[in-house]
């Protein structure tokens, strides 16, 4: 018999989509049975109490989790988020219910061995509830108590060879798309770059020294599967500088209907016969494609690498071979000054593992040094950039000024000229002036 009545939540057990309520109930049952005879280190009935407190919120229309609380592991300022219930008497199993962020492997590939080890750890020392995964990408373990934190960290590092993720005003756990591991569009090895920078900046990840959070995300092509351009302070988007590779025979096979367009992504509905002019040529945002006499031509100099033609005919068209990435800066959600998209800081940079990605690290560290100096408390770099100007950011990053950094030139002539930019400087004599002009 369930510990708490949950008539509202029970309604979320019906319908086809996987029910988190049913899942929590099966966890509650498993912990009650305790077939492995575990000596649970936090209350065994915490899943039931979580359902209880959630049902209370469904009735009250308000959350029942208290504000924060500082908990963590020795030497780290991030990775653990304190959480306490505001009805501890009713729901003692979740009175203390801290979150642990665990650094996820790049691209979120797993062996079952690793996942089972995480499960064993979380069964014994946590609630048995997780998020796979949090919005930033970490493995999120939901619900444990303070005395377990060091124990969990010890087991995580010693037995699972894995670290905590980031939280607070520090570098958040970087996240990458699956990149070269299973995608033909990858312009650079997003997973390796993500891993390398994660390791390089472990100190920034675990010990808050920034004005506010800072996110890296890595998309290996302009399709943007991890949404880097929208939600990371520095986004690394794969791109290329040379020509799209064209296989005319495969183009003909698309036109002839032997290969389904867009890799079959529209197979659920009859959109009629594939029309290469309507579906590819006319949709090219820079009018860089033509199709004449059965031959597809791309004016690569005019191509803006939007990916549409490649996505539509992946067997006929391939990304170029001179690949690297663009770096965009300053994306964030609306808090506080409205949403910001990443702005193009570096149009192209080599992604070179051989020199340990030094060119990229130089840009990162330039931006950080400037932001740590100039940024206000709780100001994302995108806001600092807006306050002090994009030019200041470009100087800080140590990258060249480039027309590609803007959509169009400024609308006003209120240019902040510097004294050294003007002939003769700004210092002038009023006496000289008066020689030419009466008072």
């Amino acid at each position: 018999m369930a510990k708490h009545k949950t008539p509202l939540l029970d309604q979320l057990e019906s319908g086809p989509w996987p029910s988190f309520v049913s899942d929590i109930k099966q966890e509650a049952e498993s912990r009650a049975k305790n077939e492995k005879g575990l000596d649970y280190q936090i209350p065994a009935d915490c899943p039931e109490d979580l359902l209880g407190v959630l049902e209370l919120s469904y009735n009250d229309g308000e959350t029942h989790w208290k504000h924060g609380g500082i908990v963590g592991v020795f030497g780290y300022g991030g990775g653990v988020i304190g959480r306490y219930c505001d009805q501890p008497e009713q729901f003692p199993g979740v009175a203390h219910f801290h979150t642990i962020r665990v650094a996820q492997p790049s691209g979120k590939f797993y062996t079952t061995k690793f996942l089972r080890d995480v499960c064993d750890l979380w069964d014994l020392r946590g609630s048995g509830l997780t998020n796979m995964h949090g919005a930033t990408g970490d493995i999120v373990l939901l619900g444990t108590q303070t005395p377990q934190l060091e124990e969990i960290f010890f087991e995580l590092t010693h037995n699972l060879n894995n670290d905590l993720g980031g939280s607070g005003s520090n570098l958040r756990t970087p996240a990458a798309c699956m990149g070269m591991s299973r995608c033909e569009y990858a312009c650079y090895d997003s997973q390796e770059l993500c891993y390398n920078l994660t390791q390089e900046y472990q100190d920034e990840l675990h010990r808050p020294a920034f004005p506010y959070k800072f996110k890296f995300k890595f998309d290996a092509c302009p399709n943007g599967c991890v949404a880097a351009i929208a939600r990371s302070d520095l986004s690394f988007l794969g791109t290329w500088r040379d020509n799209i590779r064209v296989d005319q025979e495969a183009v003909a096979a698309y036109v002839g209907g032997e290969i389904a367009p867009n890799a079959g992504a529209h197979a659920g509905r009859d959109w009629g016969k594939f029309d290469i002019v309507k579906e590819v040529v006319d949709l090219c945002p820079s009018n860089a494609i033509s199709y004449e006499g059965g031959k597809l031509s791309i004016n690569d100099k005019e191509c803006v690498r939007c990916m549409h033609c490649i996505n539509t005919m992946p067997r006929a068209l391939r990304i170029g071979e001179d690949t690297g990435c663009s770096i965009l800066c300053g994306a964030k959600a609306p808090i506080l000054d409205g949403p910001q998209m990443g702005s193009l800081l570096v149009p192209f940079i080599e992604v070179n593992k051989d020199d340990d990605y030094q060119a990229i690290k130089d840009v990162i560290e330039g931006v950080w040094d400037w932001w740590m100096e100039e940024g206000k408390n709780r100001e994302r770099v995108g806001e600092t950039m807006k306050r002090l100007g994009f030019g200041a950011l470009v100087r800080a990053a140590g990258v060249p000024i480039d027309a590609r950094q803007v959509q169009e030139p400024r609308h006003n002539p209120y240019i902040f000229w510097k004294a050294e930019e003007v002939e003769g400087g700004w210092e002038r004599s009023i006496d000289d002036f008066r020689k030419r002009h009466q008072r």
Partner: protein
Amino acid sequence: MAFISSGYNPEKPMENRITDIGPQHFTEFLQPVIKKNFGKWLYHEILEAGVLKHVAESGDAVYTVRCGTARLMTVTHIREICDIADEWCGGYLRFTTRNNIEFMLEDEAKALELKKFLNGQKFSGGSIKFPVGGTGAGVTNIVHTQGWVHCHTPATDASGTVKATMDAVFDQFTDMKLPAPVRISMACCLNMCGAVHCSDIAILGIHRKPPIIDHKYLDNLCEIPLAVAACPTGAVRPSKVEIDGETYKTVAIKEERCMFCGNCYTMCPSLPLADKEGDGIALMVGGKVSNRITKPAFSKVVVPFIPNNPPRWPEMTDVITRILNAYSEGANKYERLGDWAARIGWERFFEVCDLEFTEHLIDDFRDPAYYTWRQTTQFKW
């Protein structure tokens, strides 16, 4: 319950301490066929909804079966997932950025068999444990935040609104009948941990009442200057109040300036603003992150407020379904939801989706608002 030591010695916290090792290298987790063909993939196809085929230069092919999950999942459930991966995929699997699970196999027939198997697995309450889909021109899984399950600032629940929505749009998950992919995202307050601001459809929890001031405790719990500085509209100022003859240092709030972002509460627990009638959901549409054809774009608010009506939020799912249907009927192949709305004009969008345009939808927040007003006589009746 006896305390079990992991080996950690609180007397000597630095002894044998391992720190700053980061995650394991991802190559430890790659299936042999993925590892062998790393960086050498030629092309891919979607064989049927939820089943992908990737072909490498070597001629190797890998078949992926993608299934949706509730991202809040238990260890019992993860172990079930591991059992499946052990039996069918040699002990490997991956998660997508949108909380789907991908099982990868080298045999096409087996992959299709796995799809059938996954669709047949059900929770005791009747829902499907691993519904296969989420590919191509359809709706994929919803990324979301914690909501009432685990967060201290939410204006609504996340897991519940997502379950209700995915039930309502389930056919679009298992099929590929839409003009282009539709990404739905959910964030339970304006902090937007879920960064839903560039989604085709965004479900966003919002507050509508200014904070309550816990005068007697505020000065003990908060740094008043931080709470003052936290307000983006300058609505919070330091103040004093007298209660039962005693003077307390506290803050005052200029209520007409409050835009209910909750940032002051984040800095100061004595300024809660959650409220049963005040809280609810705003719906935003037309954002995207891909550079395909058109530029990445922000989502726009099209419904300023929908009351919280748990457990199923019927008013919310009704609007989402209406928008999806209108889009499905009206958009061209490859056209994302926001591109369709921009093409037909937003005034027309409200008409075809049968949504009311209200004063709340005219932006009045700082400079960017200006760029959303119309500076032309080109409009539609």
